[in-house]
């Protein structure tokens, strides 16, 4: 599979994404500079974490207008897989590819620690390697992870199983205390209505190798690869 990792000025988790897909999962990885107008030949696109444009004005507010984002919108419209991690999630929100917005963390602190998230929907291309309700330990590192949307949109997300990850306790209970940043409904990650675009604040690429003591993130990234392989095999048969 050919995985594209977009690099904006200020992205800093792009190399970790490349490492996991290329060196841990054995896939081809293409680094895509933000001015690149084409995503031709790519099977999935990752918008990595970091501080694109220094988070100036609002996090992700300027990156959403990078030339590559036209291609990302088209890629998503074609039903292909797009994963936004942390700043990548923020960019997807600002670009309108996912509903809602990010506010400053309730505590005003930049929080850099491990969290537990519950897999609320294991039927997506990003989570099918997980069991429904599985608890994953994944680190977060952000100051603006306080997800917000209006009540009508929230109800729609809930009804449509678009909330993919919720912050929880170690045993999978979703409590206000287990939410590190004040995020609405403990939302740590959500997808679009079609299920091909996922945004998540925690960093799966930081916990995808046994040597680092935590491979929980690998489930998400490997889900993408396995799903793509299945689709390609099915297409080859037809």
């Amino acid at each position: 599979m050919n995985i594209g990792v977009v690099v904006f000025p200020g992205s800093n988790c792009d190399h970790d994404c490349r490492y996991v897909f290329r060196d841990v999962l054995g896939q081809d990885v293409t680094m895509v500079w933000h001015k690149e107008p084409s995503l031709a030949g790519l099977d999935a696109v990752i918008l990595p974490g970091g501080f694109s444009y220094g988070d100036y004005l609002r996090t992700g507010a300027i990156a959403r207008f990078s030339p590559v984002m036209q291609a990302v919108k088209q890629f998503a419209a074609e039903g292909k897989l797009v994963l936004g991690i942390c700043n990548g999630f923020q960019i997807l929100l600002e670009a309108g590819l996912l509903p809602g917005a990010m506010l400053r963390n309730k505590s005003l602190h930049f929080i850099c620690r491990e969290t537990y998230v519950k897999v609320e929907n294991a039927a997506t291309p990003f989570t099918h390697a997980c069991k429904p309700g599985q608890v994953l330990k994944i680190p977060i590192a952000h100051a603006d992870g306080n997800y917000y949307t209006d009540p009508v949109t929230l109800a729609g997300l809930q009804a449509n199983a678009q909330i993919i990850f919720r912050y929880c306790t170690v045993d999978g209970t979703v409590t206000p205390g287990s939410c590190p940043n004040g995020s609405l409904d403990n939302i740590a990650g959500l997808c679009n209505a079609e299920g091909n675009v996922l945004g998540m604040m925690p960093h799966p690429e930081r916990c995808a190798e046994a040597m680092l003591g935590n491979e929980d993130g690998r489930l998400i990234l490997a889900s993408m690869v396995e799903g793509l392989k299945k689709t390609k095999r099915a297409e080859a048969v037809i």
Partner: protein
Amino acid sequence: MKAKIHVTLKPGILDPQGKAIEHALDSLKFKHAANVRVGKYIELDLQETDATKAEAAVKAMCEKLLANTIIEEYRYELG
């Protein structure tokens, strides 16, 4: 023409910065400050001399980039 733009969080959106500042004012014995909200002030020069066109331009800038209208509102002065 100069545009002076204020971007603020919509009422009802939690503003922890505002709260932190409110507590700080309180601890400095400024007891009468309440409901502190923090926003952004942006100034820019416009080449446009026609007031109507200038206003349309500033409004479009706010809608498209300067404010995230899901969580923020804006007001501006042109002069």
